[in-house]
């Protein structure tokens, strides 16, 4: 043991010598250090998939509309917008004097070019989808952008809030596939409050302040996002002061940080909604999408609302939240989470946790334990209520949730065969194959409810996004209506009605809406925005106002 100790001492000494030699570096600017668990997969907005990429895009680029943490949108590079009466033409007046990070002026031509770029590249993974309703985008002069729509839509602000404005003088050589997707865009020239200084994949992204930004010049000089591959190390880095803020942390670490006066933990609804769901395979054999590989082997009992209702009433959501999330979540109702603000139907009263009531429902519906083995059978006695329950093997919460559900549902005479499955294999068996009984999974999504609402739509069954196989013509009708309803209040009513329908049909059991947990050091920077309905410390709103503690 002594030899090991000596070895450590030698190495430590060496380290001290090196660090002593190195302290004479140049004076550094005001640098905010952010620790996070990922790294952008690319700097090309067309091909980005990971959240980290979009966090960086939001800081480096401007857009026509900006989404704010209070759930509303505001005009960004545009000073005004004029909407034609038929809702089919939008005319934006672009703010004068905006410059790209390389000094070139940004004009309406760049805006139109960017939107056309996203529209024309069908293999741009996400951003292309936002342009589906755009007919033409033109810039008649340097300060005017005219968007003509195919159909009037209620959410142009949402659609435009992800369409980043890129410089035509750089991207014109990469406007078409395959150049548009192969372009690495390492300089990431935009007009946003921050500019790209350095990007080292899987290590860090270093951004410098764009002090000449027309609206939001940051107070700090640099923001560095450093990748840490483990949550515990993130927390430790914050404690040791290696970083000033972390964008994610495990719930288990919150308690250990409570006593630390220099660290403040913030929790709340995440920027992108996080919904966990218990998926019941309830596809009607008539709707089975056999032409795209549908086999539809689900347990027939799950097609019965009574069974799903009973399972819902047999689920103690608070217990799940307390044990799986250590309390950092809220009980869920439908796929539309409370984090979506006004779109969330808060008038719905959740089914009460009541195992006796659940037992009664099953008894009344004819699901009795005819052979007295402790497990109920379907009414004709041919099959027990034994369900396969699968979850993605990379899920941390999956095993705990499955065990707890197995326990709770065991109280009402239902048994589960638990199994973790490779996420890809799970996608393959899930949908549109419908080769499962119950899956524990979840969604992350956009601020607009349209995306999550589409998951219930019959039209999404063959595409594999309707994961339950649920099909209700009344719902489908409302889904189409909300997609074209221009009056926000009326659209809200439709969206609320839709939630009521799927809630009454017990399409899912939604155990909870998970909260995001972030933390920052109080002795380094001040001014973090933490009182908004959504919490995101790495959002541009915080990063432009934080300043060093005096």
């Amino acid at each position, binding site marked *: *043991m002594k*030899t*090991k100790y000596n*070895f450590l001492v030698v*190495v*430590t000494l*060496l380290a001290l010598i090196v*660090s002593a*030699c*190195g302290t*004479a*570096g*140049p004076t*550094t600017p005001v640098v905010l250090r952010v620790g996070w668990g990922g790294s952008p*997969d*690319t700097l090309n907005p067309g*091909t980005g*998939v990971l959240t980290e990429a979009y966090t960086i895009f939001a800081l480096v680029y401007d857009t026509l509309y900006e989404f704010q943490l209070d759930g509303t949108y505001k005009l960004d590079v545009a000073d005004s917008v004029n909407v034609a009466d038929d809702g089919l033409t939008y005319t934006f007046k672009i703010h004068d004097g905006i410059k790209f990070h390389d000094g070139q002026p940004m004009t309406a031509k760049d805006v139109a070019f960017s939107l056309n770029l996203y529209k024309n590249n*069908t*293999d*741009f*993974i*996400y951003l*292309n*989808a936002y342009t589906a309703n755009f007919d033409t985008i033109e810039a008649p002069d340097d300060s005017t952008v005219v968007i003509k729509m195919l159909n009037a839509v209620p959410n142009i602000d949402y659609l435009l809030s992800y369409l980043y404005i890129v410089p035509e003088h750089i991207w014109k050589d990469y406007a078409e*596939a395959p150049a548009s*997707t*192969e372009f*690495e865009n390492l300089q990431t020239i935009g007009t946003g409050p921050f500019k790209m*200084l*350095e990007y*080292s*994949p*899987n*290590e*860090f992204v*270093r951004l410098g302040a764009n002090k000449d930004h027309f609206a939001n010049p940051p107070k700090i000089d640099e923001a*560095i996002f*450093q*990748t840490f*591959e*483990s949550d*515990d*190390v993130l927390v*430790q*880095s914050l*404690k040791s002061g*290696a970083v000033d803020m972390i964008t994610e942390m495990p719930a288990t670490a919150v308690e250990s940080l409570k006593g630390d006066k220099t660290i403040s933990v913030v929790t709340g609804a995440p920027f992108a909604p996080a919904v966990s769901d218990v998926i019941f395979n309830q596809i009607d054999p008539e709707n089975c999408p056999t032409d795209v*590989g549908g086999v539809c082997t689900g347990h027939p009992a799950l097609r019965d609302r009574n069974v799903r209702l009973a399972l819902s009433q047999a689920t103690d959501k608070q217990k799940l939240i307390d044990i799986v999330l250590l309390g950092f979540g809220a009980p869920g109702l439908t796929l539309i989470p409370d984090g979506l603000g006004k779109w969330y139907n808060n008038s719905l009263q959740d089914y009460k946790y009541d195992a006796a009531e659940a037992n009664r429902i099953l008894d009344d519906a004819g699901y009795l334990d005819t052979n007295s083995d402790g497990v109920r059978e379907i009414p004709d006695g041919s099959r027990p209520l034994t369900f396969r329950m699968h979850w993605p093997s*990379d899920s941390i919460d999956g095993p705990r949730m499955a065990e707890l559900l197995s326990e709770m549902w065991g109280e009402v005479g239902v048994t589960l065969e638990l199994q973790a499955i*490779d*996420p*890809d*294999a799970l*996608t*393959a068996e899930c949908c549109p194959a419908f080769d499962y009984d119950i899956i524990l999974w979840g969604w992350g999504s956009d601020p607009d409810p349209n995306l999550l609402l589409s*998951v219930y739509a019959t039209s999404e069954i063959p*595409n*594999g*996004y309707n994961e339950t196989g649920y099909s209700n013509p009344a719902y489908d009708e409302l889904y189409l209506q909300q997609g074209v309803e221009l009056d926000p209040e009326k659209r809200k009513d439709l969206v609320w009605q839709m939630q009521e329908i799927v809630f009454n049909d017990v399409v899912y059991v939604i155990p909870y809406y998970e909260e995001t947990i972030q933390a920052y050091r109080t002795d380094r920077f001040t001014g973090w925005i933490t009182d908004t309905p959504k919490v995101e410390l790495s959002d541009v709103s915080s990063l432009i106002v934080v300043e060093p503690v005096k």
Partner: protein
Amino acid sequence: MNRYQFLWKKIAWALFTILFVVVLNFFLFRILPGDPVRSGTRDPRLKKDAQEALRIRFGLDKPVIPCFETLNPIKPGDCAVNPFETQFFLYLRNLTQGELGYSFHTNRPVADVLGERLWNTILLIGAGQLLSIVIGVLFGMFAAWKARTSIDYGALITGLVAWSLPTFWLGIILLFWGSNNGFPIGGKATPGISSFPFLYQAGDVFKHMILPTITYTIVYMGEYLLVMRSSLLDVLAEDYILTAKAKGLTTFQILKDHALKNAMLPIVTIIAINLGFTVAGAIQIESVYSWPGLGGAVYEALERRDYPVLQGVFLLIAVSVVLANLIADLTYSFLDPRVQAD
């Protein structure tokens, strides 16, 4: 068999093995369940035509081999298709041109992705290997020399404990200790120092290497120590060592001239195998210390069904393991001429 025949035979086998891996690599990933287009983007925004466009971009629209569109699920296809329009032959053709393709996930050339990571891994694992070999072998020799003394038992216990420590656990423990003592605990270097003098940067990387290297060294040192000790003990029990002692040689002379060369044989094997796997990185150490090495690249690529990266990494590992083994074989024949005669 003369020396050249032996050499050619070994090289031919090595080439054959690599070729086998090249073919296996391709099919291994195609029989895994999962669709690279949908994995990682299970999202309604990815519409049908966008999926189709991605498939074309990745070349996944072409049949895997003649007669088979896909292998999982097995979907029979046209047998009369031009073989050079199938994924397998395109893969072979690209490979012969040194083209590893583009990562599905980052759209960057695989060679670039692996290149960056390879150097990071070689830096870290190389340093760890070197240290653990030197320390392990020296202590192993010393322990065998002082057999059945407290030094020997001490070394033996240290070796056993070190070798059986779970790597990630030791890593985490050292990480917390280091973090409280001012050591950097994540990444290869402090971000944002690229404009600083080279020496400052080198010193910074050195500081970042300390904890992961110690972790690696402790774990692997145990292996070398134990093998070296027992191998040397075996040799020291041989009759010719007794003869050497009887001739009046000093212990040092016995060790140097008579025992070490024979005792090195098993160590050479282990070193060769471990060095071969060096490029595979050490997933656990890399992930504990967020070291951007190849181990992490394998993990991420697997998660996202990034076939081109996986193929590239596996090929790299196979080549280096085969090469290391070839070198071991040749060293063996040099250390122990009997090997050739077999």
